[in-house]
């Protein structure tokens, strides 16, 4: 577990290109500072090689997927941070304003709750609406995408988060 796994420039370029494309397709933007982003992408690859999933490069992973689900990039906190600060915690994802150079990405406060308060919030049962649905409704915890089907999709069509980031909404 010691040391940093090797990462090639090609690996970084390939993931950078894919993340950039997927971000734009979903209405998100990567930070225009390419050197900065390559540093983050390298961190994502290192974490993937180390843990088996791409946990946030700027947070400490527990090394256990279940405990780190909320900080697998894109993290559960990206969208609220984009709305409030114009960038996610790492500043990998940025707002239109930062992309256009009208604002600068900066280090922002940590939104992730401390471990003792980090219970998985389930939205199930929090609504007072009583519905009789033919299918259950699943919510992507990363971007809020909703879909009605027997089970969640393998990959969120909006933000590309994987199946395990979905929770049953109704």
């Amino acid at each position: 577990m010691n040391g940093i796994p090797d990462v090639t420039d090609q690996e970084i370029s390939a993931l950078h290109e894919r993340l950039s494309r997927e971000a734009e397709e979903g209405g998100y933007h990567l930070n225009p500072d390419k050197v900065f982003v390559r540093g983050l992408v390298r961190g994502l690859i290192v974490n993937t090689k180390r843990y088996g999933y791409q946990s946030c490069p700027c947070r400490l992973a527990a090394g256990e997927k279940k405990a780190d689900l909320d900080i697998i990039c894109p993290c559960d906190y990206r969208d609220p941070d984009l709305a409030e600060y114009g960038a996610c915690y790492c500043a990998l994802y940025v707002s239109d304003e930062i992309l256009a150079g009208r604002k600068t990405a900066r280090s922002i406060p940590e939104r992730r709750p401390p471990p003792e308060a980090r219970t998985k919030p389930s939205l199930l049962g929090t609504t007072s609406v009583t519905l009789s649905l033919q299918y259950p409704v699943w919510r992507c915890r990363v971007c809020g995408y909703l879909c009605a089907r027997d089970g969640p999709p393998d990959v969120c069509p909006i933000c590309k988060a994987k199946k395990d980031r979905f929770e049953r909404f109704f």
Partner: protein
Amino acid sequence: MRGAASGPVPVGAIFCLLALAAGLLLAGCTSNPTAPSGPQGANLPSYMVHVAGANDRGSVILIGRATCPWCQKDKALLSNLSVDYYWVDLNNLNNDETTQVISSVKFCPETDAVPILVIHGQECIVGYNETQIREALK
């Protein structure tokens, strides 16, 4: 970022705890782990990399990850200020060592994110905050 932490933790405690995390016993650490003592000349754990600087502000430790760009910004700022400090790259630690190092700085306002800059064992700046770091290292 969150403000500086309150509540003094003697400088020596941090070094002793970091050292103990690596299984080393430093002189002065076993009898009184909270005795104030600096790192200079001590037999520090190998993961504490000394970054020499002309500006000795006392005990300054930066805990982070080489793969985190904000940590690199912290390092660049410290170098720019010629601060003499110790760098701990969590990438080089196993899970147990990481837990122990983080436990030694539990007085920080948050310890789930990096960079964590510990100044004099009692002030803690989490995240890259140039203004706050410059102010703390005046």
